[in-house]
């Protein structure tokens, strides 16, 4: 043996190089060539996808609404340690910054930033800025004369917090927490705790939708996997057609079917099951979200299940039966375990997609069927608290990435099947 390997070391190529190096070089070259093929796309995805998302995540910890527009006061905070009572230079910095803000029309921006931390303060900034041009020393008296709320130490504590452009405040807010005046992390007041509940609700609803998809998808996949190919290919169209049909079309269809004057309610009234007054509320609430999303995500459950079930030979179950197992036992002990990879793949995929769903809840969810994505959209488009939207998005993204990693570990991305 030793002789052989020694001989192998001594092998050379035709031009006299050691074979090992030549092979390694060739291997390197092949590697590089393969990587070069992938590189354009990788660069494309990084620039048009990864970077934008990274930039947004940055917004979650960076907000210069206060620091950029109140430079003097921000500098004062930087120079004086926590707990320093505002002295006259501080009041002067505040007064002059407010004057500048009034001219530059940025008082609203500043007030909005402070208001995120301390509710009810935006109007203080805008209204005081309107009076700021008349401020004269001593500034403390001038500012407090404009509005006595300025004397509130809590306000100064809050301004100190927001005077740093980088902070974790928005992540805290996204977790229903805040910093008190001493900088301690405390829970939000009860009536303003909404995000954690919504995260929990999103995960519960996604779980429920995954479960209904599984319950509806399993029998179908099993049927398709056990029918002769000719038939299963035909029936497969019934699964693939929804898959290929526009999401908005399917959502529209559910509105048409389920709304109060819709097809289902009208049919129930016509057949006398319910009365005209008793029309059911099946859409624009959680139920609407669940039904429509189950329908939309069902193919993502059926397809992986089917691809796992199809190759399972029917002889295993038959063997179990011939050995005396009941059909239930044969199913439970023999068939079901073999489908576990499919169940895992389908469930994870459906859950991942459901957790981040936006369109369907927005259109048919009403007030109670909204998910975390809808709240992100709300803060993006309506309240315009972009930093909070980014923080919520970062948390959601984190959760999805963990699931994605799990999917890759358990199923493998290569095994993603599409029809």
């Amino acid at each position: 043996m030793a002789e052989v390997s020694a001989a192998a070391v001594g092998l050379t190529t035709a031009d006299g190089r050691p074979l090992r190096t030549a092979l390694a070089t060739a291997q390197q070259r092949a590697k590089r060539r393969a990587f070069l093929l992938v590189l354009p796309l990788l660069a494309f995805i990084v620039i048009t996808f990864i970077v934008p998302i990274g930039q947004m995540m940055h917004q979650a910890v960076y907000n210069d609404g206060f620091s950029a527009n109140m430079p003097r006061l921000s500098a004062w905070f930087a120079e004086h340690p926590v707990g320093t009572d505002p002295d006259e230079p501080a009041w002067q910095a505040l007064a002059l910054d407010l004057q500048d803000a009034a001219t530059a029309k940025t008082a609203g921006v500043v007030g909005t930033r402070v208001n995120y931390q301390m509710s009810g303060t935006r109007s203080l900034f805008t209204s005081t800025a309107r009076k700021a041009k008349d401020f004269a020393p001593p500034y403390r008296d001038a500012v407090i004369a404009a509005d006595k709320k300025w004397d509130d130490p809590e306000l100064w504590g809050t301004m100190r917090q927001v005077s740093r452009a980088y902070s974790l405040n928005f992540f805290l807010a996204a977790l229903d927490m805040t910093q008190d005046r001493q900088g301690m992390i405390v829970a939000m007041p009860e009536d303003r705790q909404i995000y954690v509940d919504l995260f929990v609700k999103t995960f519960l609803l996604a779980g429920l939708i995954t479960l209904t998809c599984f319950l509806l998808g399993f029998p179908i996949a099993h049927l398709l996997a056990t029918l002769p190919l000719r038939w299963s290919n035909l029936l497969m169209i019934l699964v693939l057609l929804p898959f290929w049909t526009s999401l908005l079309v399917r959502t529209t269809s559910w509105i048409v079917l389920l709304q109060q004057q819709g097809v289902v309610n009208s049919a129930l009234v016509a057949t006398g099951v319910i009365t005209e007054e008793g029309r059911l509320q099946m859409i624009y609430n959680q139920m609407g979200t669940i039904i429509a999303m189950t329908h939309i995500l069902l193919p993502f459950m059926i397809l992986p299940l089917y691809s796992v079930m199809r190759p399972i030979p029917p002889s295993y179950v038959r063997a179990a039966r011939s050995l005396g197992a009941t059909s239930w036992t044969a199913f439970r002990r023999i068939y079901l375990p073999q489908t576990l990879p499919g169940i895992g793949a389908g469930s994870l995929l459906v859950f991942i997609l459901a957790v981040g769903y936006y369109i369907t809840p927005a259109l048919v969810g009403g007030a109670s069927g909204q998910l975390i994505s809808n709240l992100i959209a709300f803060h993006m488009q309506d309240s315009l608290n972009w930093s909070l939207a980014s923080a919520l998005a970062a948390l959601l993204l984190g959760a999805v990435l963990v699931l994605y990693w799990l999917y890759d570990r358990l199923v493998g991305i290569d095994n993603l099947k599409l029809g």
Partner: protein
Amino acid sequence: MKKLLVLTTALSGLAFAASAEEIAVMSWGGAYATSQIEAYHKPFTAKTGITVVDVVADNPAAPIKAQVEAGNVTVDVVDLEYADAVRLCDEGLLEPIDPAILEPGADGTAALDDFLPGAVTECYVATIVFSTLYAFDESKFPENPPSTIADFFDAAKYPGKRGMRKGAKVNLEMALMADGVPAADVYATLETPEGVDRAFAKLGTIKGDVVWWEAGAQPPQLLADGEVVMSTGYNGRFFAAAVTEGKPFKQVFDGQVYEYDGYAIPKGAPNLELAKQFLTFSTTTQALADQAKWISYGPARKSSGPLVGLFMDGKTEMGAYMPTSAANLTNALPSSYEFWVDRDTELNERFNAWLASN
């Protein structure tokens, strides 16, 4: 970057010969947008050859703020509620408008005297007076129909779902009026924390019965679909549905909240000059009067008043449907922009927390 530019040009070239001159006007969609298209857009295009694109938003204030702050302005003219316009102007998000570009009234009155008091500001020209009120489906309440704002909040006496706008503004005022606060004292009450609590408490009494709407076109649709038995909404929308589509909607002017609505130009509008041209054109005496032919909103110019006659169907007198006619003003509240300019963010935040809590 050069390649990108070439590609951009190639792509935009493909965008089917976009007409040389075009402006985008963002407004509220539905019957209101129709009235603007008929009264302003079409005549403007006919006169100048400039195409006007109607862009729809639930409330244009939010997208405009987002566009200007992100440096992404894609519309040239925006239709805003008065309080929002003052707020955005304060924040430097709107272009200043020189009142000199406004035409004098048809009778020769100077523009600033011809417009209703306060209708023209540093960056805003009001075009209409509109009202938020509630309407109900007459077929649902054949006997003893609701007639006051308190009835809207009385789910025991008038059972059924109600539509309300998803936001704090107007809802809080209506809640207080329904709770017995006289219109004149509403804002003084809302200035106090107790007053705000009281308004939310009143809203809470019907929270479970409310279907929240966002776009102005939704309330008449919700009523028509039978999703709700009554809904707050913009009076012009109910009018359009009732008169043009013959829906059995009855408006209740008791407890209405009325306000100006009009045009502004976002800072950084791509076609500033054309936008100003459009503003001049659409705020003339005749244009404002024409709009009232299409929807029951009062024109913001005094000189337009006498020109308002019949609805475009040629038989409906507009007077009875106008929020500003004397009969409709017995218990009405002029919306306070001073209040909302400063409180809008805070109260909406509280409203959303309230909505999300159980």
